[in-house]
């Protein structure tokens, strides 16, 4: 009985990338190939520990023979494929996608995005000043839209959710990339505490019945925070420091060590500022953890600093 296929060694596939022949292992994505070849493709929803969600549409490239642009994060390289990453069409697409995201979402804590906006000449302001935060986004029903007046840019802005001592959820920064949902769901944690609720522009990440986290299925592993690309999810310790102006990444060191809470041997990266642990992440390339931890590893460090 061989129920589980454990795979065979991979062959190399040759294709053309921006006019140059490139060879990559079969099953590699176009984005993998670009990264290996040193061609930078911006992306927000791609996660090195997650399956592609095809959600943000920032990484679109042109494939000869394809009617539409294709997401490079998920499209596998095929032999003889002709891929172009830097055409007018890809540039326009990237510019518009970034404009829409930046006009609707607070990207102030999204790494690298400022540079991409400049490179593409995106003008998110052209849709008007942002609409004020809304306090009913969590409870909107499909079909209950008010017709916008066109004077302001529609946004996902809403009050920050601080309902426990460990996490903060600032969904005004959420681009709905699905990474947190996938990390919480069947790809890693299997807690299924959050999913996407609502339709269209009202879609949002929600616990069941939009309950506060302590009344949800959340087990506080922090694996959603680990993969969040925009800072919509953050640890309370980091959030509080940002609020009171004492968060300073320039003064932080990152040191990878091993967790002490059981014998599994999870890798922890300790972010230390002024000899205080201020955040714990986990290296994504560890064969033990793949970037994941449990509540103890993620938050159980205060005891060494009770000094």
């Amino acid at each position, binding site marked *: *009985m*061989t*129920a*589980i296929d*454990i795979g065979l060694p991979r062959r190399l596939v040759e294709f053309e990338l921006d006019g140059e022949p490139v060879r990559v292992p079969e099953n590699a994505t176009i984005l993998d190939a670009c990264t290996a070849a040193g061609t930078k493709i911006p992306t927000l929803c791609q996660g090195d520990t997650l399956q592609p969600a095809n959600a943000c549409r920032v990484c679109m490239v042109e494939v000869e023979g394809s009617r539409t642009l294709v997401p490079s994060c998920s499209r596998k390289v095929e032999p003889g494929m002709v891929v172009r990453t830097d055409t007018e069409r890809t540039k326009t697409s990237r510019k518009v996608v970034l404009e829409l995201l930046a006009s609707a979402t607070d990207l102030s804590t999204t790494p690298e995005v400022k540079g991409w906006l400049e490179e593409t000449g995106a003008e998110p302001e052209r849709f008007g000043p942002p609409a004020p935060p809304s306090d009913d986004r969590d409870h909107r029903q499909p079909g209950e839209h008010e017709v916008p007046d066109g004077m302001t840019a529609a946004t996902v802005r809403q009050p920050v959710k601080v309902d*426990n*001592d*460990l996490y903060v959820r600032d969904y005004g920064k959420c681009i709905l990339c699905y990474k947190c949902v996938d990390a919480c769901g*069947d790809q*890693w*944690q*299997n807690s299924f505490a959050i999913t996407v609720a609502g339709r269209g522009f009202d879609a949002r990440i929600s616990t069941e019945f939009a309950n506060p*986290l*302590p009344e949800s299925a*959340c*087990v*506080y*592993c922090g694996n959603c925070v680990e993969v969040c690309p925009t800072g919509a999810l953050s640890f309370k310790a980091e959030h509080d420091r940002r609020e009171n102006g004492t968060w300073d990444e320039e003064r932080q*060191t990152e*040191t*990878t*060590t*091993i*967790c*002490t*809470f*059981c*014998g*599994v*041997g*999870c*890798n922890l990266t*300790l972010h*230390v500022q002024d*000899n*205080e*642990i201020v955040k714990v992440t986990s290296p994504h*390339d*560890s*064969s*033990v*953890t*793949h970037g*994941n*931890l*449990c*509540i*103890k*590893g993620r*938050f*159980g*460090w*205060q*005891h*060494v*600093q*009770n*000094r």
Partner: protein
Amino acid sequence: MRRRKSEPYVRLVEPLVREHGVLRPAGWEEALERAAEGFRRNVAAKGPDAFGMFSCARATNEMNYVAQKFTRAVIGTNNVDSCNRTCHAPSVAGLARVFDSGGGTSSYREIEDADVVVLWGSNAREAHPIFFQHVLKAVHKGAKLFVVDPRKTSTAKWGHRWLQLHVGTDIPLAHAVAREIIHSGLANEAFIERATEGFAEFKASVEPWTLEVAEEVTGVPKELIRELAHAYARADRGQMSWTLGITEHHNGTNNVLSLINLALLCGHVGRYGAGLNPLRGQNNVQGGGDMGAIPDRLPGFQDILSPEVRAKYDALWGSTIPPYKGQNLTQMLEAMERGDMTCVYIIGENPVQSEADSEHTRKRLSNLDHVVVQDIFLTKTAQLADVVLPASAAWCETDGTFTNSERRVQRVRKALEAPEGARDDIAILCDLARRLGHDEWDYTSAEQVWDELRQLSPMHAGMTYQRLADLGGIQWPCYSEDTIEPSFLHGRLWEEDPAKRGRPAPFSVLDHSPPVDLLSDEFPLRLTTGRRLDSYNTGVQSSGFESPLRRGETLDLCQEDAELLGVRQDELVQISSRRGAIVAPVRIDDGLRPGLAFMTFHFPDEIDVNSITIEATCPIAGTAEYKASAIRVEKLPPGITEDDRFTVVPV
């Protein structure tokens, strides 16, 4: 319900010495001299075997290496052990007896490729969450998961099948599985013939355990036993993992051997994807044993009774290692009671709260002439000491290595400066060694210790710090700097050539032995203990952060038992055993069956559960039967209020 929380522990930043019965602050010079003088005095009076070392399964391999070297080369005894005794010593003893090596046989990655996974006495979902993610990878790919546990844990809820056995009936269940495999013609006869011995005797010994008899004894329906037997035997890659549900019994080693028998029967060992894996409870409990911080092995799991092995160590250390096994932690505690052991050096352990029957342990430690405790906190154990030495926290304030449950040695790196006044464990050990006449003791880095170990332990020889960093850790064995061994152990068992195959793996003939603490009219309920996701052991570390999930200690009962006792959720009740009594609130848990109660041991400063657990220990490995106490639950008399809940009521 309101929970009265104990204050979080605060780091120790100055040495303490006992004067006129109380601990007072002292300088390092005075404290080290007092510590050394006490060891000198006791060893002079009663010989080196009056000394005991409790080494630390939380500290680095390097610290454990130095601690056991201190015990053997400076003091001259093999009395060194650690809290592996309270958890997985039976796993090491069982695996070593059959395969000559005490480690789990496969890797996490292999479990993702298994097609049948058995978790026996393991609540991995809560106690080893990241390991369980690897199991779920297999489940999502189509593997069948069997969970064997008296409680319907969150792990059991993920099982395709849950076998709810009575506490302490693991051997009958394993025997019935074995008999069913044999009778169905599913045993791997070629493997048994070539790689094992003692099959005939084993076969005869399991013959009485029919499915019907096993159902009667274990409470598991015979259809489920049959299904487990057939699925495991038919699997291409069958994984068997276990935790403290197997080991924390008075016959823990036999329980482990009963699972090993099943793997031998089906050939589920020594191949990619198939294996036997104890899930270790502490970050370096595997490494502590590998480093020789156990009474019968030298670093590299080398036999203390072998003259050649001892000679190699004596030559490098300039020592004379005693040619007999030292005492394990359980035996040391007994020797304290007899007065044969008069001084101990306890590094980073909290036996007063972690040992079963904690009041007994406290009395035994109080019996000693000289107790030195080296820790980051003033634990309940440290409060009994004559000298307290403030240490640095291994995992974030020192450099070194830990070894995990898949035998992977990984780098530990210093990220923080230890608080002013605390010192590195290895530096303290060196200071004491010099005070005891060993002027040559001077390690300037953890890497220097590691390189000394690599010279002596062949299974670590190829693991330089550089390679450990480059490769994301290396699994032992690793014999040379330019090789990597397969990710599983004991591939030799599948060799064609008998010489390469080596010693056949013996089947074990085992008897069923029910829990020692018998149920009676006076103590009619079975209490078992375990962990919860957000807390850890005696709570010294995990009390340091606020968890939204934490609800404190409770007595978990099923609805039927609560009704029978006339108690409600949150009601305070008195819980008595033959050893003591405590008061705790009731929590209704539908994962329990009538007659079975559950508590954790995470909040001993609030409710000391280990004051009622039993100290009956495994004669082979010395692990106590934390998993099976007999208790009585009673309503509190009127007039007792919530404020009385934390007092221990005399029986």
